């Protein structure tokens, strides 16, 4: 129970720039806040249970507990975040909770614990920061909604599972967190389960993720079996040391783990659950898209980056095209969607494609930097969309328009988020996207790099469309829209700050004095990552990226900027072949429905239903009938006639005997004295006779 694994408290990490060793950094142990970082992992679960128990009786339905736990996490992780800026931290601890013994010829222990290093600290902070903002926002957003305590309990569970995942020192705990996130997302997507499509969306998300999880689990078992150890630090060390056994399975295991990441991070063709997941309340979407769900796959890739970088280079051949297709094709879908949340959902899928393509080509820092900046502006955009939906009571942009006059704060922050997402210099999204483009060019994936630049154009186009249809033109919905309450706009303003400036922390070649830059923050790992970092800004690439984005904005504005034409365009923008293809989401959903779900529902499910309904139920009912008959027999024959009779007879006999014997009690002293004398005489006579 208490056996801790080795603590690699102080190790040397090497920060490289342009492939050359620049400095050797001694990693600190992080002190108190690192050693007790497990509190961060546990506090949301405490809040989860507490909300379930007492949430209903509290003023804000338990939201204060959820926000409190997250605020604690935010403070705690901020301390770690800042100390990690100054001195890289590495601290790992695992408690053996089960000794499985021999598993496939290898000793296997099951450990739970946490790891505190550059990567996990960054994730702790992002999760805590975004979650705190979203929770505060949700207090107002969910006011008067159904099942509010349960909603906040699930949100806490969601964030807690993500922290368990992020803090996992080994693959097993990662899988636990991974499934916990899947469960919580299922609960939250299906929050309004009274409507069939919402519960279907929840089931779809769960099932698609489950399919991908198979890859994750098999990949984890392959690695664990080869190394005899599931720890990430062991995997990283073995990968750096070019361990031969691990090299043999690295590509296969890497691809299987990537398959798992494809499910959580919604890569083509397993992206289908994410747009449907918009069925949940908007704060859930914000949380899911910014911090706690879809980033898990990218995080897994980043956590196992040494494996992909050193041993599984061949896996890139599969990973890069899949991610590139995701980033381009999913962006196109956002162009034809009317539901504002689904536009943002497709945008998330597309941006996840960027992250995945970056990490696939070897851009560890680039991918995680994009994750970092994306978390802020996507949370901002979703909360902005939620604010709009809250106001007009519709998800469809055809019911919106002209809202900038009614909702100035939402409008301004939303535009900041949109520009950041589109990649306009100097907002956060520009720097991270530019870094991805740079690493793709350097690693020799030039054609995919141009695809990514085209993707930036698409991104700018659909974001312009969204802003134009939502906030410009004339209002088309019902009622008078109003600005959301302060509790909702304050998180928007707070999130707009990092969405604007977060990019400045990783300008190529710029280091901010003693705090370094994002590269050095997340470079604090047990082994050097050895990925490419540009030493100066590639102005040509930056110009291309900004030009693509500017072109997209210009085209989008000319298409959707004015409302009368916009209305007309939305009906006439039907390019033959392409438009129906996009409207039908490349027919992937139909393919799954007709190719997989319906055959299973039709044949297999009916067969199973028959077996269940006729055979198993028959057996169960028959057994129940037999037991019932037996019970009746026992009751009437044995219980009523046998046992009851004996008990009644005993009682009656005792009563009658008492009735007879009571006449002995005459109350006369001399009768008793006579009985005494007779007794004494009998005793004496008996004594005389028998001795």
């Amino acid at each position, binding site marked *: 129970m208490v056996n801790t694994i080795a603590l690699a408290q102080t190790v040397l990490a090497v920060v490289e720039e342009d492939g050359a060793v620049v400095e050797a950094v001694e990693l600190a142990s992080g002190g108190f806040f690192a050693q007790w970082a497990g509190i961060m992992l546990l506090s949301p679960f405490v809040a989860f249970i507490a909300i379930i128990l007492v949430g209903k009786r509290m003023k804000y339905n338990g939201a204060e507990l959820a926000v409190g736990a997250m605020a604690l996490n935010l403070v705690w992780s901020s301390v770690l975040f800042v100390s990690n800026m100054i001195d890289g931290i590495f601290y790992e601890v695992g408690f053996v909770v089960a000794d499985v013994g021999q598993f496939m010829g290898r000793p296997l222990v099951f450990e739970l614990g946490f790891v505190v290093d550059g990567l996990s600290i960054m994730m702790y902070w992002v999760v805590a920061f975004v979650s705190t903002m979203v929770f505060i926002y949700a207090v107002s957003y969910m006011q008067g909604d159904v099942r509010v305590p349960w909603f906040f309990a699930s949100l806490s569970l969601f964030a807690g599972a993500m922290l368990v995942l992020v803090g996992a020192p080994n693959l097993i705990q990662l899988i636990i967190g991974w499934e916990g996130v899947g469960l919580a997302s299922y609960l939250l997507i299906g929050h309004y389960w009274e409507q069939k499509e919402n519960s279907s969306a929840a089931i779809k998300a769960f099932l698609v993720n489950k399919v991908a999880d198979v890859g994750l689990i098999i990949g984890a078992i392959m690695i664990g079996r080869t190394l005899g150890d599931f720890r990430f630090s062991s995997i990283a060390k073995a990968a750096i040391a070019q361990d031969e056994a691990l090299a043999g399975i690295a590509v296969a295991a890497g691809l299987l783990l990537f398959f798992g990441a494809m499910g959580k991070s919604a890569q083509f063709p397993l992206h289908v659950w994410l747009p449907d997941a918009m069925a949940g309340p908007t704060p859930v979407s914000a949380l899911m898209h910014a911090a706690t769900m879809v980033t898990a796959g990218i995080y897994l890739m980043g956590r196992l980056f040494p494996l992909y970088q050193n041993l599984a280079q061949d896996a890139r051949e599969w990973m890069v095209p899949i991610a590139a297709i995701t980033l381009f094709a999913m962006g196109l879908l956002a162009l034809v969607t009317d539901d504002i949340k689904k536009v943002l959902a497709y945008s998330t899928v597309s941006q996840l494609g960027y992250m995945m393509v970056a990490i696939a080509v070897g851009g560890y820092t680039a991918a995680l930097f994009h994750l970092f900046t994306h978390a802020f502006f996507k949370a901002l955009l979703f909360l902005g969309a939620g604010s709009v939906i809250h106001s007009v009571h519709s998800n469809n942009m055809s019911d919106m328009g002209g809202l900038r006059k009614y909702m100035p704060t939402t409008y301004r922050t939303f535009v900041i988020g949109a520009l950041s997402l589109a990649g306009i210099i100097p907002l956060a999204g520009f720097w991270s996207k530019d870094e991805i483009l740079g690493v793709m060019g350097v690693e020799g994936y030039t054609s995919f790099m141009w695809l990514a630049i085209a993707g930036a154009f698409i991104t700018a186009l659909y974001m312009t469309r969204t802003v134009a249809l939502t906030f410009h033109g004339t209002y088309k919905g019902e009622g008078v829209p109003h600005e959301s309450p302060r509790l909702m706009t304050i998180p928007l303003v707070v999130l707009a700050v990092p969405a604007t400036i977060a990019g400045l922390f990783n300008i190529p070649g710029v280091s901010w004095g003693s705090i370094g830059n994002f590269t050095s923050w997340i470079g604090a790992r047990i082994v050097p990552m050895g990925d490419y970092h540009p030493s100066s800004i590639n102005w040509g690439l930056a110009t291309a990226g900004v030009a693509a984005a500017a072109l997209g904005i210009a085209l989008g504005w000319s298409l959707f900027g004015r409302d009368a034409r916009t209305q007309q365009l939305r009906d006439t923008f039907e390019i033959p072949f392409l438009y129906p293809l996009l409207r039908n989401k490349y027919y992937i959903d139909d393919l799954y429905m007709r190719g997989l779900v319906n055959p299973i529902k039709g044949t297999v499910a009916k067969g199973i239903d028959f077996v269940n309904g006729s055979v198993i139920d028959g057996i169960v009912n028959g057994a129940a009938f037999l037991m019932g008959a037996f019970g009746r027999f026992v009751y009437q024959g044995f219980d009523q006639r046998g046992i009851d009779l004996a008990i009644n007879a005993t009682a009656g006999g005792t009563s009658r005997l008492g009735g007879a014997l009571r006449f002995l009690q005459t109350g006369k*002293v001399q009768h008793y004295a006579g009985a005494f004398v007779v007794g004494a005489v009998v005793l004496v006579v008996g004594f005389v006779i028998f001795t």
Partner: protein
Amino acid sequence: MIVSQFLVLASLLFSLGVYGLLVRRNAVTVLLAVELMLAGVNLNFIAFESVIRDSLASGQVFTIFVLTIAAAEVGIGLGIVLLIFRNRATGNVDELDLMKW
């Protein structure tokens, strides 16, 4: 010395006591009859003591005990009889049958 003479006398006294206990109606007489039974028992103790003569003189000691207990018993008994007489104006034990079922 012949013990049986004393034993005969003692058994006569005891039987007389039993007779009085069972037959007499007056509560005070019943108590007197109990005293007679005790006197018979005491006589037995003394008689056997004079034959056995053990070093602890148990027969005499027990006799003293019995006399003490008898005195206490008569004290309480007469007190009860007095109170009953005061409440119910009778000393007849036949009429004192309150404790029957």
